[in-house]
């Protein structure tokens, strides 16, 4: 069964890709879609079987490398974590396949498109079912390739090509870190099997290693390198620049790859390696800080963008930030939960935007939209649901709310709880970043709705009049996703982060941190352990990251010490008062997300419904803050000035001076000249005369015999 789940899409991709000329577009589309749907159906069963019945298993398909100690095999590791990802990936993928029937109906290269989509699905499934780092890396690169192909799908568009290259190159930076991480793992642990590595984590605590000529804690450096890989794929701060540009690809691609699945691979990686990150407090702190910054920073940019897809893209970036800081704080369940719900509503928003774009003849600029709710009411309705889910609307303290309400609030409250328990400044920072980002999220999301669907239409009138609702084949997936966006949170709250959590995740995720508040018996000891960790953390921090996290880790250590004694009692008493899993935080914390969401909504209402002139004037006057945000904090310009131009300058130097003059002059060109003359001299020996040939042979015999006799003495 699992083989069908994983290899079905590959089969589809192969058929559609290789045989398209013989079977035609329609057949290619049907075959890929049916295979992915089959895969999705089986995944649902698998999810039930693994997560609720408990049939975890690992299937080995074939050996891959077997070189000394370096062994890796193609295998499928099916536990709750991968089952969750299986469902998300295949489910969204099949909906996107179906949606593309309508969206791509006029494209001449439909078969190629579907083939790439299925190929992507296969690579993603390989990634999530990997049982060792090598296969994970295979899937990692596979999704990168598919992403590149799909972003550049309209290869005649120069912007699409450059966006594809940008995505690929940026990812390469991350992948380099990831590859180094894998090598480091092999170096330290002697294996790259997940089980083998995780089993040794405890023993390797405090093990030091050398990197770039300096000594570090091995686990810290491994976790950090893995996180660099995750940053690239999940578009975190510094390596986020490719994601907005990736919107050059067809919209279904954005929904599948750049919202629901591939970009969450980084989160998956961190959660999958939770045993390592648990043992690497400094690296985890870095994860949390970067995640928090991303959540805030992407949200600010989202406020000033005018391209409908870019707004959603920055929103994705920001939500990924949430997942990362949750994972960095040890809230792995919450991170996965947000990943899970986010897949529904973000795919919904993307596909909904696609529906709008489709209706308006490929218009993406929100300044040229408006009033659309009259002409495309169904799209309006599902976009509304998506927005409610994204902004996390729900009534605190109850079980009523949209998907995002459960998952995002779980993260924010979890962050607060960690901050309260450990006094960690990272957690405090993350908490406030989460709250502010929630405010901004609400603002830009409603801004999108109001600019697109309300007010007067600002684009060409004939487009508006000709606009029509998308065909059922596109609306169907939207409705299904809308159902998910409404209910996914409420349904799965309990297994993912609530009471049933331990029975749900079992061994697939490690919750060792005090932050999870699960098992109170060892809580006191854990705090002690935490204090011990923090000691190391402070040392390591000084070694590793110097200023950035050093201070934080110091204070963390000090506070953890102070709390060590009373911590046990404190935590125990706190726990007794609590009824449901994660909700043991003050009431004001419960209400904060709700309030800021409301504020954001009201702000958007004020600026875009009641006084639409104000933002336009701000935009036109081009104030410094607006242009700062509109230009995405000038990251592209910064990178262009430093890395691109710097690399080019350095490249020029190496090329003109180093390579052409020195290396080529003495090396290849010089050698080539010598080789050429040698070759022609050699061929002149080949005279064609029989007696010359015979002479050569006889001389050779005599020479060899003579040499041997002399040698032997």
């Amino acid at each position, binding site marked *: 069964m699992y083989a069908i789940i994983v290899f079905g899409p590959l089969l589809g991709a192969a058929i559609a890709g290789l045989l398209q000329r013989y079977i035609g577009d329609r057949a290619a589309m049907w075959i890929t879609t049916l295979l992915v749907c089959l895969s999705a159906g089986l995944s649902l069963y698998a999810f039930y079987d693994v997560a609720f019945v408990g049939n975890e298993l690992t299937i080995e398909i074939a050996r891959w490398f077997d070189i000394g100690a370096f062994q890796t095999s193609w295998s499928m590791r099916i536990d709750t974590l991968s089952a969750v990802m299986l469902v998300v990936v295949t489910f969204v993928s099949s909906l996107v396949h179906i949606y593309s029937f309508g969206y791509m109906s006029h494209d001449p290269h439909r078969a190629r498109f579907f083939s790439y989509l299925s190929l992507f699905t296969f690579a993603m499934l390989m990634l999530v079912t990997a049982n060792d780092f090598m296969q994970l890396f295979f899937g990692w690169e596979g999704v990168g390739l598919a992403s590149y192909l799909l972003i550049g799908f309209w290869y005649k568009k120069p912007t699409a090509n450059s966006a594809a290259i940008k995505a690929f190159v940026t990812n390469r930076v991350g992948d380099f870190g990831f590859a180094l991480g894998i090598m480091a793992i092999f170096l330290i642990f002697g294996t790259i099997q997940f089980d083998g590595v995780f089993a040794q984590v405890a023993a390797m605590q405090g093990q030091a290693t050398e990197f770039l000529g300096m000594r570090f804690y091995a686990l810290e450096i491994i976790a950090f390198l893995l996180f660099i890989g995750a940053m690239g794929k999940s578009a975190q701060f510094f390596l986020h620049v490719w994601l907005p540009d990736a919107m050059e690809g067809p919209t279904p691609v954005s929904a599948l790859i750049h919202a629901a699945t591939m970009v969450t691979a980084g989160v998956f990686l961190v959660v999958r390696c939770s045993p390592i990150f648990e043992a690497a407090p400094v690296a985890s702190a870095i994860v949390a800080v970067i995640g928090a910054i991303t959540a805030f920073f992407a949200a600010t940019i989202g406020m000033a963008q005018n391209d409908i897809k870019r707004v959603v893209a920055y929103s994705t970036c920001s939500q990924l930030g949430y997942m990362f800081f949750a994972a960095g704080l040890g809230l792995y369940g919450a991170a996965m939960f947000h990943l899970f719900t986010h897949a529904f509503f973000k795919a919904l928003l993307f596909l909904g935007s696609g529906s709008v774009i489709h209706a308006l003849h490929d218009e993406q600029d929100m300044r040229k939209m408006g009033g659309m709710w009259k002409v495309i009411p169904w799209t309006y309705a599902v976009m509304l649901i998506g927005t409610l889910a994204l902004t996390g609307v729900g009534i605190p303290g109850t079980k009523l709310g949209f998907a995002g309400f459960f998952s995002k609030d779980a993260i924010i409250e979890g962050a607060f709880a960690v901050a309260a328990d450990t006094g960690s400044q990272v957690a405090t920072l993350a908490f406030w970043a989460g709250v502010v980002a929630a405010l901004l999220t609400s603002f830009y999301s409603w801004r999108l709705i109001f600019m697109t669907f309300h007010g007067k239409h600002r684009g060409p009138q004939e487009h508006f009049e000709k606009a029509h609702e998308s065909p059922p084949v596109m609306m169907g997936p939207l409705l299904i996703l809308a159902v998910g966006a409404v209910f996914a949170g409420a349904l799965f709250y309990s297994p993912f982060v609530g009471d049933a959590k331990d029975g749900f995740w079992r061994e697939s995720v490690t919750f060792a941190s005090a932050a999870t508040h699960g098992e109170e018996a060892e809580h006191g000891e854990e705090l002690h352990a935490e204090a011990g960790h923090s000691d190391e953390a402070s040392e390591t921090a000084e070694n590793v990251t110097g200023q950035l996290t050093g201070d934080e880790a110091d204070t963390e250590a000090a506070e953890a010490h102070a709390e060590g004694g009373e911590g046990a009692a404190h935590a125990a008493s706190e726990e007794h008062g609590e009824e449901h899993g994660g909700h043991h935080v003050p009431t004001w914390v419960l209400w904060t997300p709700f309030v800021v969401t409301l504020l954001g909504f009201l702000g958007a209402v004020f600026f875009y419904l009641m006084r639409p002139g104000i933002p336009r004037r701000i935009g036109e006057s081009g104030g410094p803050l607006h242009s700062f945000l509109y230009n995405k904090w000038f990251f592209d310009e910064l990178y262009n000035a430093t890395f691109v131009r710097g690399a080019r300058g350095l490249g020029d130097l190496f090329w003109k001076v180093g390579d052409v003059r020195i290396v080529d002059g003495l090396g290849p060109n010089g050698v080539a000249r010598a080789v*050429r003359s040698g*070759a022609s001299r050699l061929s002149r020996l080949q005279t064609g005369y029989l007696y010359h040939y015979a002479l050569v042979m006889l001389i*050779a015999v005599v020479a060899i015999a003579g040499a041997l006799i002399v040698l032997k003495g």
Partner: protein
Amino acid sequence: MTESFAVNFAIAAPEVFLAVATMGLLVAGVIMGDKSARLITWLALATLAGYAALALAGLANGAGAAFSGALVADRFAVFAKVVIAIGAGLTLLLSDSFMQKEKLSRFEFPVLGLLAVLGMGMMVSAGDIIAVYMGIELQSLALYVMAAFNRDSLRSSEAGLKYFVLGALSSGLLLYGLSLIFGATGATDFDSIAAALAQEESLMFTIGLVFAISGLAFKVSAAPFHMWTPDVYEGAPTPVTAFLAAAPKFAAMALFARVLVGPFGEFIGDWQQVIVALAGISIGVGVFGALAQSNIKRLMAYSSIANMGYALMGLAAGTQNGVNGLLIYMTIYLLSVIGVFACILAMRRKDGMVEQIDDLAGLSQTNPGIAVALSMLMLSVAGLPPFAGFIAKLYVFMAALDAGLVLLAVFAALGTVVGAFYYLRIVKLIWFDEPAQGFVRPGRTVAYTAFGSAALAFPILVVFIFPLISQAGAAASALFS
């Protein structure tokens, strides 16, 4: 002589069958005339299949020796015979349509091929220096005739004559060497020679060994006994060149291994240096010589010289791994070279065959199928990972390094760099240059052989290599038991 005739016969069954069938085909050909050439070719293929099958069936009886140890049937021999039968069969298959088109179709051709195979079979099974000589001569005489098969062509006749004269010289060297060895040990079968040598080693033996090695080196066209190769490869009809390049090379290399690590295994100190020198010189001559060629058949001649050098690296190691590497290398080389020659046979324009490398320009546009196949094969022969040729090289390099032949390995690695140039030049010509006049559509057998061979070189199908490696390993261990 306690062996009964039946036991001898059972062990020699493949060779007996082949000899009888060949005679039968010869008689049938004489009766039916040249019209029957195609039929005889197919019957010859069936005979080869039967030969390989009988050899494989002999495995069940375990290793054994017939005729006082002159004919040995062990795993090594069986492996070699199967590969030889495959190589000879494929090249005979390729020759058919060429011979028809060039009006060279004669029933003698497949018969001569079978006689050569019989000689090769005796070579790889030889357990006695007389059997060695007989096998080599049987093979060589058939090949001389085949090289001169196009009697009306000056080039072909010249090729045949050169091959014959130099071959006779090399046979003389070999025979002289073998007689010196006999003189030093007083025995002709390998076991007795080894036993006698264990008693006493003499200068006479050393010189005899050098002469024998020289004679064998000629057969594998290792430099500096390679001078005949470019001329014969260029002059002989293309299918004959393909035949020459494939099975006989493998057989001679297998014989080389059997002789050196069998009876003379103890004296590796004597011959290792010689083989190292031969390997090094072959690689050097092969890669540098190929650079200056413009005729693709001559290019393949130099390429084969270089490749024999790499294969000899495995032999120079003198270890079981080395022989294993040698067998793997030669098998992969044999399959690739047949594919290359299938591509060369496809180089036919309306007004006849062409052989210049420049004629391949822009092949990707005029004949994409052959273009892909030839490119794959070139990349594989150049030894680029992940093609099959890389794996072949990997094994011989590892064996040489394990045996401490670091200098040779470094030199050989540099040789592959130079060699990559002319292989890649062909790939570049095919894909990036302006198309020359297109070729006519190749026949089905030619195209399929080219595709099949390219497919085996293709990385995804590298799976076929694993059974090959294990079989070669078993064959190599037979020599060391």
